[in-house]
């Protein structure tokens, strides 16, 4: 294992190109302890947390761009986010602990690919995009299509996440919802996370987005549920239909943090709470 600390992006891509082992990016590194056993011996690790060019939080073309190595403290203290995306910012208040917030990066959290990560459900409902860069290329993809499976991503060789782009007005005039249920109130791994956005006019659902974490192999939007709900009146929603759709769209498991039934019931309850219905 060779550990690299490139001087800048250019240097990073040069080093990547010359590397003939499997390359890993390391940003933050607060989860690395758990993964050291799984990292093969013959790998090169490229530390990128110190590259400030990847760390800015700025406004570009109607989007707030959050650099992939922005720490959670950066996010929690950002005036841009406070002004334009307060729901996103406030939802992360109890992310990990202050010590981890100071080190952990948003890009690391996403690319770590844990099904339980706290950020993805938020990014999914906020229509976030990812800016990906490689030596000679850069592309923007919807965050929605980034996860392909458990710890599988739409990332090419030597490509990394440069920034997360969230439309500046993503929260405007919308009702927002975010609830993470863990074993304790902070510094805890989610048993289930539900995030939602909705716009209701004349008691009719005009806009709806729901994303869940910890109940599938990666965090995802509940598209079938959204399709069912859109244009419905709240009082037209049927408990059995809702239950049936969710039962197909989520695949919770029992592990030592919680059990399948609990995750299912709580997911259902939280979605009902978000929708404001009480069967």
């Amino acid at each position: 294992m060779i550990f690299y600390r490139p001087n800048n992006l250019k240097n990073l891509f040069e080093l990547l190109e010359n590397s003939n082992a499997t390359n890993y990016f390391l940003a933050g590194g607060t989860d690395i302890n758990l993964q050291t056993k799984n990292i093969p011996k013959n790998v090169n690790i490229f530390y990128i947390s110190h590259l400030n060019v990847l760390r800015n939080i700025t406004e570009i073309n109607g989007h707030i761009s959050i650099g992939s190595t922005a720490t959670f403290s950066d996010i929690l203290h950002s005036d841009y986010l406070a002004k334009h995306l307060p729901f996103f910012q406030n939802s992360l208040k109890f992310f990990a602990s202050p010590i981890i917030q100071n080190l952990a990066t948003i890009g690391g959290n996403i690319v770590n690919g844990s099904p339980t990560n706290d950020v993805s459900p938020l990014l999914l409902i906020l229509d976030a995009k990812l800016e990906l860069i490689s030596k000679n290329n850069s592309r923007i993809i919807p965050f929605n299509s980034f996860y392909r499976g458990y710890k599988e991503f739409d990332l090419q060789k030597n490509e990394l996440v440069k920034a997360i782009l969230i439309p500046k007005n993503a929260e405007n005039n919308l009702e927002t919802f975010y609830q993470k249920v863990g074993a304790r109130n902070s510094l805890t791994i989610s048993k289930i996370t539900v995030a939602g956005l909705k716009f209701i006019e004349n008691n009719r659902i005009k806009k709806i987005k729901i994303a869940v974490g910890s109940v599938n192999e990666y965090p995802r939007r509940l598209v079938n549920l959204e399709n069912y709900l859109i244009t419905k009146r709240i009082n037209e929603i049927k408990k059995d239909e809702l239950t049936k759709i969710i039962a197909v769209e989520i695949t919770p498991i029992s592990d030592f943090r919680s059990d399948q039934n609990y995750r299912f019931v709580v997911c259902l309850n939280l979605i009902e709470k978000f929708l404001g219905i009480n069967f």
Partner: protein
Amino acid sequence: MNFKTVKHSIPKVDANGLMRGLPAYTDDLTDENALIIKCLRSPHAFAKIRSINTEKALQLNEIECILTHKDVPRIPITRAGQGYPEPSPKDYFILDEFVRYVGDEVAIIAGRSEKSVQKAIKLIEVDFEVFEPVLDFEKAENHPSIIHPEKEIYTMFPMGLDAQKNVACSYTNTMIVGDVNKTLAECDVALNHRYYTHAQQHVAMEPHSSTAYLDYQQRLTIISSTQNPYHTRRIIGEALQKPLRDIRVIKPRIGGGFGGKQQIHNDLFSAIVTLKTGKPSKCIYTRKEVFESTFTRHEMRFDIQLGADKNGNIHALDIQLLSNTGAHGEHALTTFMVAGSKLLPMYNKATALRFEGKVVYTNRCPAGAYRGYGAIQANFAVESAIDELAHKLQMDPVELRLKNSIKEGETSPVFKVMGEGGEGIEQKMESCKLDYCISRGRDLIKWKQKFPFLKIAPNKIRSVGTAIAMQGSGIPLLDMGSAIVKLNDDGFFNLLVGATDIGTGSDTILTQIASEALDVPIDRFVITSSDTDVTPFDVGAYASSTTFVTGNAVRKAAENMKKKIIQTGAKIWQIDEKQITFQNGILKSKDGLKTITLKELSEGLYYSFAEDMEQLIASGSNTSPKSPPPFMAGFVEIELDTETGKIDILDYVAVVDCGTPINPNLAKIQVEGGVLQGIGMAMFEDVKYSKNGRMLTNNMMNYKIPNRCDVKKLTVELAESYDPAGPYGAKSVGEIGIDTPLAAIANAIYNAVGVRIRTLPLTPEKILNGILKNEKR
């Protein structure tokens, strides 16, 4: 009562150096050339070592010593640091051909670098014969797998050890008062329920640490994170067959114990490596080793029968207990007995009482001492049952407790029948403000406005719950503490105690007691705890003993010193002792003509009083036929989310009777810490194993203790109380805080949503499941 130093919240005497991070703990004090010791640990829950080959590992450059069961003395001992003769089965060998839990020691490896030792561990070849492990303690008795088949194990007095049946001890037909079955049959209301309490980890900040070296006289010195240096010296002497004169144990600062360091742990390994190699060595456990290979709280199962008349007078209480001691029987009998002896006397109006049961071996991490020590487990069962009874009687559970709980001046037959490990000693409650604690706590939590629940939002319910507890203040006529006070030139004193401050603040409160008794300002004392070569005997920090037991020893020693100072004044001034006063560090004749400061006196005594020169030194020892219990009422307000089953602790009110608090601030934080640890056990902590017996919760990511966001408010109040047997009226306060949260929170959950959880921990999964079941009904 007015005191000069006692009952004042002075800062901890060791705070300054610790806050500045100066070297103070075992690992700070190790020789830089100390050999690094690690253990090869068993991957199997139960197996026999057929063969073990260390040749390849020994060839590594930096490896100095590898020990297997063939290389160490085979003496059955118990690692439990408690009284002697020990009330625990002697069922442990330094290394054995059997491994009895995942994480058990297979071999001890010592080398000049950690890297080489880790490498050596991988090169040791072991052939195991794997057996079916006993993992379920309810199936342990008469299980085909016998965990301790070895013939040498024994107990120092009869306690029902039956190793062939996996029974570590049993206790029947002894603690019986009245006719329980008949009385229960005559009760208007009776209940019979089964409760389970789970294992818990201590999670002290400092891992278990030990270092050893031979001094120039070839005496073995061990610096250890131990709660009981004298027991450690005795047990090491026994295990290694060495006279105690050749062993010295030093206890430096300790980063928390909670009972986890009341057993010998890696001291045996550092001692034996240093003896074999002649070189200094150290064994500092990793967090994983602390979790997997030290001790947990005993898992227990209670069958409770409780009966009362329709007016709410409790007549009968029956406790049948099964306890899981894991692979070894450290503290097996005594935690078991405390479960009865610290619960039954609380309901002393009952005329029929019974307490019986067994402690069994399993192939799990050994159970040992842990703050609360059986009382906390029984508190969950009995205090849950009391609420269930209140519900059946349609009585307010607070009223039921006020009606039936022990009052000042009263006693209970239980004190005489059972102590820790054997018979107890009769005692009357000379201080007991439990009734005050209950009614004060009820007011503080605003019980009358909040009981049983308030619905504050469609999915949020707030409710209250309560439980009461008693603990002890040391073990009567078994625990002994002592102190030495020595006057030095410049007029300051050494206070030498064997009592072990493990972060509790005992050095501070003992200094306060000395200052009060001697009437000398607190900054004139330098306290040392503990060093078996230097400080006098003390059983150590356990059983809530230090304040009460050692506190009285310090008071006696300081009073003796005061007498000696006055005698010295009489001698040098040639006047009668009665004509002399000693106040605030100044010796005066009553006529006011003669005065001398301590500084001048000590200069004279050591340099200039000619034939009157003398070292002033005084000692005091203490043991007591009494163990006045501290009492506590715990009240919790929770907010329960019916959509997730999650509960938040909004406030935890603890009103405690610990007699005179020697240092109110330290007494309060002892209670706060205890309450928080109890909340942790109730809601978050659980020791989980895989099907094969591997511990899954072996790190702090998987084993959750509560953090600051999990408890909104802790309210601790100390009742005005004075126990004539204690130093300046003090009782001990180390454990009492931990007992009540389990039942109080379980009772609050019931009050909120009618879900009765009888198996700990109180998880959102169980609560939500209960809510759903109730809805179906």
